[in-house]
């Protein structure tokens, strides 16, 4: 009997350990494959020039530029909206009000919607409805904002990442002890002052963590931008909000599926995936740096 118990215990230990090894192996294989095949093709020319010869030669600069611009625009859109909503839910609304339950339910559902649905939703609501209305009202019906462009793509991604930001912000607001709020109220603070001087400084690093998660998610999504602004190939970089743009993830998708000569584009494809990972990592890293600087500044005062 006791031997069986030992055998089962050992088997269970190996099984759980093996599961971890499988995860590790997956990461190593994926990253290793990308680095081995992708890294050699990455040169300054690759990073700084536009695609040539049906994407089998040249570089991917426009896609890098488009990705970074897209993510920055998305962040500008999603962070204020998400943080403001979380502050309302957590600090202002009565916790058992119907509205709060409804908004939380909506956010949970939003988080479960497939990315491609966001793409179609962006096309319908932003590009056709909002853009079309803007054109009709301000541009005399001339096609200006009523077309896929970086602005609408960024907003679509913002809707996609909104639940991430709201949930992370709510978590960090909830982590601020109630006693801090009471102490501030007892000193004559208004609700707004409690939020501004006590709650937000305490939760800023959690809010930025949410931002980082949103950036990671947003930078890698292709489906939401396919119909809302990403382009196959463009001779110019986007300079206005209503320009279309190239994007790394979409570029990968295009090269892998639409290229006339898939074998020939393979090295470029690998290098592009490598750069996509690197750019996502760098955007994350930048956000982490900003967060730790703010943390340090809060601690030093």
């Amino acid at each position, binding site marked *: 009997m006791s031997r069986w118990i030992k055998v089962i215990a050992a088997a269970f230990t190996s099984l759980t350990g093996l599961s971890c090894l499988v995860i590790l192996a997956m990461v190593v294989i994926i990253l290793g494959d990308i680095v081995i095949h992708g890294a050699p093709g990455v040169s300054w020319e690759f990073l700084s020039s536009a695609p040539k010869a049906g994407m089998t030669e040249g570089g991917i600069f426009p896609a890098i530029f488009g990705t970074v611009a897209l993510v920055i625009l998305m962040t500008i859109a999603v962070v204020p909206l998400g943080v403001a909503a979380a502050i309302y839910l957590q600090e202002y609304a*009565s916790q058992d009000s119907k509205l709060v339950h409804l908004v939380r339910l909506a956010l949970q559902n939003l988080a479960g919607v497939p990315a491609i649905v966001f793409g179609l939703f962006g096309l319908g609501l932003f590009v056709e409805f909002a853009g079309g209305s803007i054109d009709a009202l301000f541009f005399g019906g001339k096609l200006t904002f009523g077309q896929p462009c970086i602005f609408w793509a960024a907003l679509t991604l913002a809707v996609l990442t909104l639940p991430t930001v709201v949930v992370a912000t709510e978590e960090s607001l909830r982590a601020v002890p109630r*006693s*801090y709020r*009471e*102490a*501030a*109220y*007892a*000193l*004559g*603070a*208004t609700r707004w*002052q409690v939020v501004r*001087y*006590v709650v937000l*400084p*305490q939760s800023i690093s959690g809010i930025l963590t949410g931002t980082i998660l949103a950036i990671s998610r947003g930078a890698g999504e292709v489906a939401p931008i396919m119909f809302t602004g990403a382009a196959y190939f463009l001779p110019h970089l986007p300079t206005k909000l209503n320009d279309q743009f190239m994007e790394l993830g979409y570029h990968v998708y295009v090269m892998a599926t639409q290229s006339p000569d898939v074998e020939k584009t393979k090295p470029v494809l690998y290098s592009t995936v490598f750069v996509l990972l690197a750019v996502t990592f760098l955007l994350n890293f930048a956000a982490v740096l900003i967060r730790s600087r703010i943390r340090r500044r*809060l*601690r030093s*005062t």
Partner: protein
Amino acid sequence: MTPIVQFRKFSVWYGDAPALQEISLDVQSHEILGIIGPAGGGKTSLLRSLNRMNDFDPRFRCDGVLQFQGVDLYRQPVDVAVLRRKMGMVFAVPIPLPGSILENLELGPRLDGRSERLDDRIETCLKAAYLWDEVKDRLNLAAQSLSGGQQQRLCLARSLMLQPDVLLLDEPCSGLDPISTAKIEEALQILKKDLTVILVTNNVMQASRVADRTAFFLQGKLIEVGQTQQIFVNPKETLTHEYISGRFG
């Protein structure tokens, strides 16, 4: 002289549970009123009704009259932020806010929209709270790195920065060592020249040492109030006698 605070048949409920029942009590200016009684007697409810910290509890309900400086706090329009500046509050647990000692002290006046330097007031308040000598060279130190006793004196000083008329103390020495307790008690004796103190305490001896008058609360009712000496030497009510002699509570 008209009392600074007047309770007249003042009752408080949280949901259906009564916390205070028809309290009638006057607090005179420049006195220290000690409030004693076992847990659940309504002591904290009384304090939190005064500076309207109960507003945050949706189950809170009250009846009767509670006047402060002639204003009925629950029937006349009251700016709660102004009210709370006139009634400094120190909680049972020290709550230093994140940030330096200086920032903690300046927070109250800053919230009131004052931006000038307040060095004199800071020194006065820290001295009044018997903390000045311990922190005068390190005002930029994080408030949370002070010891518990120092933190509570900082909280007292932070309340004094508001230049309040009344000080509400909710068991301010419950977690403190005897030396810090003695310092706070000394501070109160001097402070009462400038303001009125309502001191809730679980420590009966503290009331006997510090309070001018003492009120005994039991299960939401005011059993007895009188000069501290009378309450301790010659209480009118048997319950009071039993409580202060340690027979229950």
